[in-house]
């Protein structure tokens, strides 16, 4: 309850700022950290990337700025009402509700999602505090671990993520905080986060979780907050190493970066979402060469994305610089599933064991 009251007062303070500007004959404006690649800095304290000191001003002086402020006010009002009425909505629902906000209507859901994040950044609250839920969840886990979940009826249910689930695994809910989920028992050596569903299913079919004592987590592309939060908890609470296994292209590196370093969009809560200890397993551009993997040519977009990563502060270590430059030189990209070139079992029998022992995870 205190948490709800806090959220209301924090969010209301935004409205107060604008209101007082009007009263003092100032042009209304709100400031927030600039949410771009150029304004993220490494936080020594949390070993993650956070927003820096650059501030952006949303001012009513311009039409766009004024629209943003008006939309912000509508969202503030909407969130306030939800908290007071003990309701919640998905981001998508909020977007549809905003259709009725006449002048403050959004042009796309991306805009409304992004504004919800702005509110987190400004208030320091989490969107869960605002009763806003993401659409995407249902990333999956398979492995020797027992998770206790408090279900919607309030019952605590223990789920063994091998014995109690089907081949699709245990589905991660959008809220993975301790009051919802706790880890009871586990017997595994590491967590393997897998980008694609196809590879996840291959590892499950080949029994990699049992054979190699791994907890498999499906990232489902760019991972949802809950997936990243769960990885962090697995890493920090159980002390399990987290390894990220993706395709070999610039977009996949960004998936790893958001898991390990924190995403640019959510840099305000990086310390809460990012797992600084996570390691990139592959597929690396070097793997293309070493394993002679089938490839596709880099597209113009791929090349631009790689170049942009070269100027991204998160990719400034020797490993990434070397790999990205190598890839630009090769002009090629590859997929996890390209390993099937050597047979369906190659990834579990040869590639992963080799890479894991190289990284010192298994002996």
């Amino acid at each position, binding site marked *: 309850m205190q948490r709800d009251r806090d959220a209301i007062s924090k969010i*209301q303070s935004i*409205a*107060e700022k*604008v*209101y007082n*500007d*009007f*009263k003092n*004959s*100032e*042009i*209304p404006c709100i400031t927030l950290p600039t949410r771009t690649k150029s304004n993220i800095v490494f936080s020594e304290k949390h070993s993650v990337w956070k927003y820096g000191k650059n501030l952006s001003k949303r001012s*009513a*002086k*311009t*039409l766009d700025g*004024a*629209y943003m*402020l*008006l939309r912000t*006010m*509508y969202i*503030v*009002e909407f969130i*306030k009402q939800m908290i007071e009425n003990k309701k919640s909505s998905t981001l998508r629902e909020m977007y549809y509700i905003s259709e009725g906000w006449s*002048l*403050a209507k959004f042009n796309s859901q991306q805009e409304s999602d992004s504004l919800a994040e702005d509110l987190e950044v400004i208030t320091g609250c989490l969107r869960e505090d605002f009763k806003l839920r993401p659409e995407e969840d249902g990333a999956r886990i398979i492995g020797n671990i027992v998770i206790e979940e408090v279900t919607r009826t309030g019952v605590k249910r223990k789920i063994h993520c091998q014995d109690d689930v089907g081949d699709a695994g245990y589905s991660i809910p959008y809220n993975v905080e301790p009051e919802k989920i706790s880890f009871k028992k586990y017997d595994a050596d590491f967590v393997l986060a897998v980008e694609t569903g196809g590879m996840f299913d291959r590892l499950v079919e080949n029994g990699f979780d049992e054979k190699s004592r791994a907890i498999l987590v499906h990232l489902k592309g760019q991972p949802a907050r809950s997936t990243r939060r769960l990885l962090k908890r697995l890493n920090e609470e159980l002390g399990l190493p987290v390894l990220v296994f993706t395709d070999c292209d610039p977009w996949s590196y960004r998936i790893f970066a958001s898991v390990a370093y924190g995403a640019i969009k959510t840099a305000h809560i990086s310390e809460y979402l990012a797992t600084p200890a996570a390691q990139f397993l592959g597929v690396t551009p070097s793997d293309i060469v070493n394993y002679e993997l089938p490839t596709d040519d880099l597209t113009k977009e791929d090349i631009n994305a790689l170049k942009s990563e070269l100027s991204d502060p998160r990719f400034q270590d020797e490993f990434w610089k070397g790999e990205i430059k190598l890839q630009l030189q090769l002009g090629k990209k590859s997929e996890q599933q390209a390993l099937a070139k050597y047979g369906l079992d190659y990834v579990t029998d040869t590639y992963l064991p080799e890479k894991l022992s190289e990284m010192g995870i298994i002996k």
Partner: protein
Amino acid sequence: MANPIALKLAQKQKEISVAEFFERNKHILGFGNPTRAIITSVKEGVDNSLDACEEAGILPDILVEIKDEDGGEKNEYKIIVEDNGPGIIKKQIPNVFGRLLYGSRFHAIKQSRGQQGIGISAVVLYGQLTTGKPTRVISKIDEKMPAYVYEIGINTHNNTPEIISQDITHWEKPCGTRIEINIIGDYIRGKRFVHEYLQSTSIVNPHAQITFIAPDGEKHVFERTADILPRPSTEIKPHPYGIELGTLMKMAKSTKCRKLSAFLKTEFSSMGERTTNAVCKEAGLDKNINPKMLTRDQLLTLLKAFKKVKIMAPPTNCLSPIGETLIRRSLKHETQEISPEFIVTTSRPPSVFSGNPFQVEVGIVYGGNLPKDSPVKILRFANRVPLLYQQGDCVSTAAISSIDWRRYGLEQKGGKGIPVGPAIFLVHVASTHVPFTSESKEAIADIPEIENEIKLAFRECARKMQRHLTKKAKRAKTREKFDLITKILPELAKKTSLILNKPIPPLDEVITKIMDVVWIEDSVEYTKKPLSQVIKSDGQTTLYEGSDEHVTTSRITIVNYKRKPLKFNLYALKPREGKIIKADPKPIEIKDYYLKWKIDNIKPTEKIELLFEMTSLAKEDFEENDLYIDGINPEYVIGAEKWEGE
């Protein structure tokens, strides 16, 4: 001794009649192919009708009908052109239609459509050559008289009319002429051009109503958009600068004057006492000499003297331009489906080449549904006649191509050639003598004076176009600001106070801070007002003639969003034709083409409303305000430009 060969040859040499010559050189007159034949026939008929109506002071009402005569088998068509003109007296009918080079205009130096008198009789000849059929003419000159019907052909040996039949008939029209000529032509291909020609004709002849009935019976009316006849063009005497030796010799021989000085003064333009003396002195000729006695050599010296003495330009009031307002009006009417963004026009003052007065008028239609990526369409006219062919050879094309249109917002490769963009260009050259490149009169010859005038006209027009374009861009920006302060800010204030459950805060000062300009907005309204409501100037009610009056009302709102009181002058342009019937508050100046207000001490957030009303305008004559300011930094002002003086 054998007969000299010359005698033998002489037997073969005989006079070739004009008619025979043209029979063999059809292309010179615009009958080069079956498609052209259709258009040329229509064109000659319509040109004649327009000239006849205007000379008689009648608003032209012209019917053009093309009938398929044989189901398309041999491509025989009947071309019918009927007008409400003065008619032709009985005696002249055979000569007008059955004789080449017969007409009243050949010797006259004045602006007219046809010049050589070849036109309509050439069509009669072409019809006769291709179908073997005579031309049917009906003409009536007075209500009380019957109409005459003739069937006429041309005797090509001696260029004389051949009357096949003549009769009188009843015709409902009070007066007018109708011709029916059967020709072989290609209407299917010519269709587009016929329409284009009639449409173009309608644009430059807003006083004419033209009805077209196509072979399939479809009827199209090109509406009259002006109820006033163009100012009649007047005949002038030849100007010494433009005269040729042959003409000078002929004139000297046939003059009634007995002295050279009188000859020069009475038979030429711009020759006063002083100039005449100067010319005679320059030529070394006695001014009392009888002009009939002058030798060829003496006339040649006279001609040279003309060129050496500075002679005033010929009178230019003999020309009859269409006028900026009328061009805009008819362009607007004919481009309705395109719904153009704006139309700008420019009339140049008259000018002279080789002693011939001429005047250039141009117009630009911009935007709407016009294609953005094709070259602009050029509509060319000479003495109100559309020129449909040989665009590439025309001086107007050269003039347009030499302007760098890129700086006026159109695309153009390398700043040369016909520009690309959503526009139509119109160019009209009026002259007592339009110098065509050939007898088919499709392209104006490359005369530097004309090219220069066309360039100047288009540059001026392009500047107007550019003003519209920048204004449009500015308007979009100001619209944004306006939305901001009138919609978004009040809503923002309302929402925050609702969330906080507090009273709505005042906005004025914030708005002033955000805007930081003087805001000028305007609107134009066009209404029909019954007499009783109209006209109050200086508190007096004046009654206007006519039962209804169309009133153009322009409203201007000025709001000071600066943080200090201001004073400045505001100028609102108006069309010269617009008659001011009301202006409130009272302007400090009302001129032909603008009104000037003095805005004294407008306080922050204060709003001032200005209004003026005009009559005698069509809706399209004034659709948006052109506002200017001075006495204030123009950057402080949105909605008006810096006044650059008159």
